[in-house]
């Protein structure tokens, strides 16, 4: 009888644990990544609607990636330049894996400043980074908005040239996503 009770308790604990983790996890596959590149006299924007990621408030894990081939700048030839510069055949993803290092209070309806710390990987180069953004719980969805400056040189990326004009090394990155609770997917 004691054996049976112990086993039942283990199952119950595991089940509750799984529910707790699942209940605090949100996921998206349709987030937006946008980068703004500058060249002398004008700027252009690249966008992907395929940002995929999970935020798990139970263990503070934040995991995002984007298939770089989905980034579009509006001109096919420029997209090709970008793909060549990023060497996406060899390194098809840009990704972040880390932890949320600020508290998030689910009872607050407004957006809350959030900071993550982890490894950002691009072009095969891994960098420890600390990024800030805003998290907001709207209904049962978690909304993310974050931005930072990315230096191409840090990731051994040679900025492409448009004729003789070189694209600026600093790229302004912005990600926005509405994440759905994972237990509803």
């Amino acid at each position, binding site marked *: 009888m004691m054996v*049976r009770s112990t*086993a039942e308790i*283990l199952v119950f604990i595991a089940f509750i644990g799984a529910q707790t983790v*699942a209940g605090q996890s949100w996921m998206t596959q349709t987030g937006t990544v946008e980068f703004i590149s500058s060249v002398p006299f004008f700027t252009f924007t690249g966008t992907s609607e395929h940002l995929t*990621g999970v935020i798990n408030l139970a263990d503070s894990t934040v995991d995002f990636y984007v*298939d770089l081939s989905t980034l579009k700048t509006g*001109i096919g030839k420029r997209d*090709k330049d970008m793909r060549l510069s990023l060497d996406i055949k060899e390194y*098809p993803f840009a990704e972040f894996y880390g932890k949320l290092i600020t508290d998030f209070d689910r009872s607050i309806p407004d957006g809350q400043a959030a900071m993550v710390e982890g490894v950002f990987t691009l072009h095969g180069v891994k960098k420890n980074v600390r990024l800030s953004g805003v998290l907001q719980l709207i209904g049962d969805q978690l909304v993310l908005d974050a931005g930072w400056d990315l230096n191409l040189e840090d990731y051994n990326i040679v900025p492409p040239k448009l004729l003789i004009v070189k694209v600026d090394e600093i790229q302004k990155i912005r990600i926005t996503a509405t994440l759905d609770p994972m237990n509803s997917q």
Partner: protein
Amino acid sequence: MKQFSGIKYRPVCLFLFLALSIGAGTVQAQIPRRLVDPGGPVDELFLSQNIVVTSSVSNLPAGNLNFTIMHVFGRVDEGVQSLWGVDGPANIRFGLDYGISDRLSIGVGRSQFDKLYDFRFKANLLRQSKDGKMPIELALKGDMGIMTESNGFEFSDRLNYLGAVMLARRMSDKISLQVSPMISHFNTVSTEHNGETDMHVEEKTHFAVALGGRILVNDRVALLVEYIPVFGDRTTATENAFAVALNIETGGHVFVIYLKTSDYLTEQHVIARNSEEFFRGDFRLGFIINRVFSLN
């Protein structure tokens, strides 16, 4: 009830415990990285929308506008006195093409010779896929030219047409090949007589099969070759057109430098009105500048 005795019940519960624990644990692990479209279309079979004179299967992305300047000089065998044809009579065509979708583009152009305006479309019916499920690229092209030279012709007499089916395949990272059966038609042609003998007979309709190939030297430079044999009846003294070209891509530009037969710049004219034979030394130097803009 027997199966729920303590001995058998415990392994079941332990299994559930492990399954639930692992199940919960996978949420914390990195999510698997997946490409959005691993079987999508292969990258550019050709760097530009043309091989040299003939169209390639490559089409403009939706919302992209391509401005083209095609220029051909006189014959190289005119020698140094005319700077190998640069001083000779030249033909030039300005063109605009627009990608309505990733598979359909329309365009208009104007050539100096015959003061020719041409209107065209290109539609990709099949796209070669990266996963090999679709091994070829298939596209159609139509072009209608209107000669506007002042010569007293009726409007319908001024029209000429081209229809082409383009079959292509990127054979490897470096090599793409294309075969294009095509037909050209002129509503009006002329025949010159010398007494009772026809000296020069122009055919209204020509059939040809254009063969094209590309070798990528690197990601931005390619060598191209093009041969357009004509089959069946042909205009007197018409030769099969031939061309070689060098493509150089820099950002939104594709520059093409070529050696080709014929001073015409539209396919229907090159098929029907080329009297130059490349390997006799009858060829011309020319260039094409393509510039792509986004209207998105």
